[in-house]
């Protein structure tokens, strides 16, 4: 219990650290990027004064407040979801943009993560059981290659060969605005899935390698443990030995790895969206970067960072449930 509380406080601390870093970074950078931003914003036209105020507070401009007061006001704005105005999508507020586009990112993410984890783990277990086969060597080598692939590059390749050249999948967007209407109808859902498939596939292909390799090595080590030998000696069926004794233990490092890889997946899906013109927050982020739209990028990134931290927390809790030894302090 004490251990869990300690973990929880680390996560809360991390969220606080991220928010605070977000606050300080623009003030630390050379030149004055924030002022430039403001200037560009003002040349766009008239702005909702409240939003303008929020931006001033966020970047510390036009104010005589001390740093500490600025910080408090910044936190206050955050809590109210006031993230400022975006240049790129002027005059929409950052909050609106995120709310609009996040659903697509979530769709993509959910599909990718589920497929990736299940596939990777199962393949890993299977390969470890059948060690020293030609399949194992071949697949492991392929996996090692995939492990170091840059998501956008894989997306490029997939897009070019599967969508562009062969025409098997749509090239971009989340759905075909011309042919289907959004809503809970089958046509739309199928169309959306069709569009999400290729992006999800590239994410899956890149990340499954990492999990598979972890699971495989973990399984190999676990299979040489005495308790697996004893399970065999007990005359239990191969299936029971493999799953209840071996995999059940081997999966533990995977769960931790899952949390860490999750960060990579979210980051990766951001990059993948760019290539596929998939209208999630990743794509908006990219547009923001290109336009030096600090309010937008800051808002999205903060959201992403906090989301990943929370996912890590959940994974940690999951680990505690799976491993009865987790109550003890481990320098793991």
């Amino acid at each position: 219990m004490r251990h869990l509380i300690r973990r929880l406080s680390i996560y809360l601390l991390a969220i606080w650290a991220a928010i605070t870093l977000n606050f300080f970074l623009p003030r630390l950078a050379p030149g004055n990027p924030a002022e430039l931003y403001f200037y560009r914003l003002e040349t766009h036209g008239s702005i909702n004064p409240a939003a303008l105020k929020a931006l001033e507070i966020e970047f510390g401009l036009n104010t005589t407040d001390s740093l500490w007061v600025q910080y408090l006001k910044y936190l206050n704005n955050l809590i109210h979801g006031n993230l400022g105005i975006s240049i790129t999508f002027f005059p929409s507020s950052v909050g609106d943009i995120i709310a609009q586009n996040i659903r697509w990112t979530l769709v993509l993410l959910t599909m990718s993560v589920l497929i990736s984890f299940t596939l990777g783990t199962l393949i890993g277990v299977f390969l470890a059981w059948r060690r020293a086969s030609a399949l194992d060597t071949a697949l492991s080598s392929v996996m090692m290659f995939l492990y170091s692939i840059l998501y956008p590059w894989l997306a490029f390749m997939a897009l070019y060969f599967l969508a562009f050249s062969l025409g098997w999948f749509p090239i971009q967007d989340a759905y075909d605005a011309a042919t289907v209407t959004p809503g809970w109808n089958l046509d739309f859902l199928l169309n959306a899935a069709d569009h999400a498939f290729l992006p999800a596939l590239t994410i899956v292909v890149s990340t499954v390698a990492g999990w598979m390799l972890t699971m495989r090595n973990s399984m190999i080590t676990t299979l040489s443990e005495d308790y697996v030998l004893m399970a065999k000696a007990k005359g239990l069926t191969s299936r029971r030995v493999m799953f209840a004794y071996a995999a059940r233990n081997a999966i533990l490092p995977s769960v931790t790895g899952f949390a860490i890889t999750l960060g990579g997946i979210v980051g990766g899906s951001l990059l993948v969206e760019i290539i596929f013109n998939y209208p999630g927050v990743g794509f908006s982020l990219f547009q923001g970067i290109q336009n030096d739209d600090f309010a937008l990028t800051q808002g999205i990134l903060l959201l992403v960072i906090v989301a990943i931290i929370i996912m890590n927390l959940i994974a940690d809790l999951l680990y505690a449930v799976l491993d009865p030894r987790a109550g003890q302090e481990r320098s793991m």
Partner: protein
Amino acid sequence: MGASEQMEKLLEVKNLSVDYEASSGTVHAVTDVSFTLRRGEIFGLAGESGSGKSTLAYAISRLLNPPAIITGGQVLYYPPSRAERNAALLQGQAHPIADDQNGQPIDILHLSSAQLRAFRWNELAIVFQSAMNALNPVMNIGTQIIDVLKTHRPGMSGKERKQRALELLQLVGIAPDRLKSYPHELSGGMRQRAVIAIALALSPEIIIMDEPTTALDVVVQRDILAEIMRLREQFHFSVIFITHDLSLLLELADQVAIMYAGRMVEKASQRDLYNNPRHPYSYGLIHSFPTLHGPRRKASGIPGSPPDLRAVPPGCAFHPRCPLAFSACMTDLPVLRHISAASDQQAACHLYDPQFNADPPTTVAIAASYEAKVEGSSVR
């Protein structure tokens, strides 16, 4: 234990050999080992690390993993007589493997996987050295007992299984409220008891104990050993007791076999071995431990170290370290034979082979030769 039971053959190992294939060469872990285990007997297997004793035990139950392979020999199991089987059957404990054997032994090495699984734990169970490592860390001990019941006794209901599990815990002296405890929540001694409880679950005929007390402190060791003896009195199973601690075997075992470099070099009853160890290695082993009682004796170790099993010395593997080695020892391989026509004791040593040596040494002579060797060697 009746006399007839006493004499009955239970397990026969004939000329068993096991090799490990390593990229640096073939390791002959076990070479040409034969012995017979009788019902109700405690058979001790002693030797230094790397002598092959654990490999032998795992080979018997076919639990060796590649790169270890059995390269020759037989392991024959003689399931106990029908009368006893039927009695056991009436108690609701089915022994599926023994039902239609007609007194023919079962060739363990050629069983199919299904048959092997039925054989395992039903007839032969293993108590591993380190209970912490032998128990699944993410499963409570109750489930680990019930596991075997589920697999081997399909007729039992959930309630009956739980009942049996509690019975077993009680047998080994673990409180019933620990049924759902995880291994890391138990003390070292309790974990070992739990492993013993699991071993007893199906009332096997043979229990192999691989250094069951080495990882425990001496006080707990005594407890566990007493426990094992008591359970044996109650259930009449046979034990193959593996250890490097010969002094234990000299107290517990009925028969003791000494292994060196993968071969069995001496086989004798407990008394014979204690009074008259014949093979110089056995002597060296026994007299490495100071005794609490008896005359004061110089404690000698055995100079040198066991050979690399990829390159065993020609002739007798022990000859480089033996204080009584002579010319034949370096060229001719000694085989396990009775030391004399009248004796049950067997040793693999040319000293007792009339072909090579007319005058077998007495125990005193062996002692003297060791002392001479120790005196003669320089201070390391």
